[in-house]
């Protein structure tokens, strides 16, 4: 709509400048600072001079290779198998720690698969980073759609004209007002493996058939447990944004739909949903950003464990930059994260673009 108005360069800049100036000084400048750091060997704390190292930090994080392991053979040439009939392979460390293969030095097994008699092993120079990357993407892929959908369901639920609906609205919103650090502390009691509330509740509901689980201590459930808690905590906020969107839809449209005899689903499909376009874009982007920034829950609840099953990119960036005093390594992760999210949001924008 702005295009139809006259150009007003000076006023336009004037209005945008305070906000943009602050962002430039306190977000963009430090980010470029971080980018510069990622090209050096700077430590957080060190009397040694800083040196430019080019893309070495990126290589140290992203280095990948595939090696093929042949099974061990017995003297008669047959494959050496263990009691279960699985072939025995030489240990990966016999290659990565051997002087014969300097190109693989310092790398570690990430995962492997079977290819005929041989095993193909993907080795990475930074397995923890790779796991953090996969976990973060998994978290986003699950949390973004589920949380957005649940928030919309809640918003529709709370958008009814009922006596006392405000009380429910407030209750649904309550987890949002409690700090995520506090929430994480509370949920540690709930997820506790011995006599945690969740275990006792599930045991009660199944009349004792459910055996307790160590939700945060088991690599197969830890990330899921954190996802569930994160959704629980944040869904109320996105409910409020959906609600704001719902409120902008004119009541006359609903009246018209009712006169036309539209059912509930049709009303939603043809009246509500089209009216929520901008809100939907906003929510999807906001949730995606917040999901990529996953940090506090990990820091309080699992420290990235067990067995790296809850490592995330931001947690690793902080752990390296501060904990291990490798500020250039931490900055490198930040830059990779930035590029990754930028790519994803450009795709999102393209997918949700307004059709001309």
């Amino acid at each position, binding site marked *: *709509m702005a295009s139809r108005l006259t150009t*007003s360069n000076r006023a336009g800049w004037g209005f945008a400048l305070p*906000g*943009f100036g602050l962002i430039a000084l306190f977000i963009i400048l430090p980010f470029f600072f971080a980018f510069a750091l990622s090209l050096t060997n700077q430590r957080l704390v060190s009397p040694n001079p800083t040196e430019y190292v080019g893309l070495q930090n990126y290589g140290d994080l992203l280095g990948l290779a595939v090696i093929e392991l042949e099974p061990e053979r017995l003297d008669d040439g047959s494959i050496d198998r263990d009691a279960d009939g699985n072939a025995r392979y030489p240990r990966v460390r016999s290659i990565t720690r051997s002087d014969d293969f300097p190109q693989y030095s310092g790398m570690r097994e990430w995962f492997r698969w079977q290819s005929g008699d041989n095993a193909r092993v993907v080795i990475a120079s930074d397995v923890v980073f790779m796991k953090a990357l996969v976990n973060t993407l998994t978290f986003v892929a699950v949390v973004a759609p589920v949380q957005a959908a649940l928030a919309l369901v809640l918003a529709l639920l709370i958008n009814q004209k009922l006596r006392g609906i405000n009380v429910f609205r407030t209750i649904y919103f309550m*987890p949002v*007002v*409690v700090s995520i650090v506090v929430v994480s502390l509370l949920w540690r009691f709930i997820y506790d493996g011995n006599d945690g509330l969740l275990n006792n509740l599930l045991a009660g509901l199944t009349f004792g058939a459910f055996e307790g689980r160590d939700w945060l201590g088991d690599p197969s459930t830890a990330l899921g447990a954190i996802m569930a808690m994160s959704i629980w905590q944040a869904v109320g906020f996105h409910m409020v944004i959906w609600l*704001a969107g719902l409120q902008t839809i004119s009541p006359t449209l609903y009246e018209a739909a009712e006169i036309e005899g539209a059912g509930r689903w049709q009303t939603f499909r043809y009246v509500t949903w089209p009216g929520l376009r901008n809100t939907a874009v906003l929510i999807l982007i906001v949730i995606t950003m917040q999901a990529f920034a996953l940090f506090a829950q990990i820091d309080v609840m699992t420290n990235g464990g067990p067995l790296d099953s809850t490592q995330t990119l931001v947690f690793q960036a902080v752990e390296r930059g501060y904990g291990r005093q490798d500020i250039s390594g931490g900055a490198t992760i930040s830059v990779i994260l930035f590029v990754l999210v930028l790519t994803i949001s450009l795709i999102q924008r393209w997918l949700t673009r307004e059709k001309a």
Partner: protein
Amino acid sequence: MAMVSADNRPLRLAARYAVLLLVATIFVFPLLFMVMSSFKPTQQMLADTASLRAFLPVGDLSLDNYRDAFARAPVALFVFNSVLVTGLTVLLSLAICSLAAFSFVYMNWRGRGLLLSIVLATLIIPFETIAIPLLLIVSKLPWVGLDGLQIGWLNSYRVQIIPWIADGLTIFLFVQYFKDLPGELIEAARAEGATWGQIYRRVVMPLSGPVLATAAILKFLIMYNQYLWPLIVVQQESYRPVMVGLGYFFQLNVAWGEVMAYLTLITVPVLAFYLVLQRAFIASIASTGVKG
């Protein structure tokens, strides 16, 4: 709210409330746990976590945890600091970000698209990843105060406020909302010769209740829960906010009862803020029913 929707047959109504209540229990139980625990001695509280007793005011209840929490840490000071920093940041942020969004949506100027893209790109940068560079920057910034020129912003309220005023998300919230406002209103005002400042103040802002409330809540939550930033820029207790104060309670043999009391205390201002805003929020929606 006396008017009730068309199908108010008692059974359907009861079913609706049942669903609402069920969902409500899911959201309320950890907080109920926090509040109830704050009245119980630590030993009892830990024993109660195994059962539904965790949510009930049963056993040996007292205000001892609150008394001990006040003795252990200057709780009132921390809450004051947090409320002050949060309040000022929210106000400044609403003003400056809405102004910028107004310019991005309604005004036509060279570089607008590029600048907006840059602002949106900053959404992607998690704060944790720029904290150290930002620390180095603020420690060198000048400030002219009552006692003349100073270098370095550490140990102050301003270092906790100014870097947080403008952010991509708040601007984005306003931009998305402004796009939905009827453009004819602005064009009509322009035609009548109103200045941009007048349009912003008299036309757009009065229609922006919902987005102001949403942006205020979001900013409030971010600011009130600050931890990493004040930890590294504030060394004096007199400027510490509530989340840094939480550390005072994690000593050997954590007194969980006191922790729960402290958590309850620091949650009260946020809840109060939300309740106040919610009323404003509802009122503003009611008054802008003309849109669409």
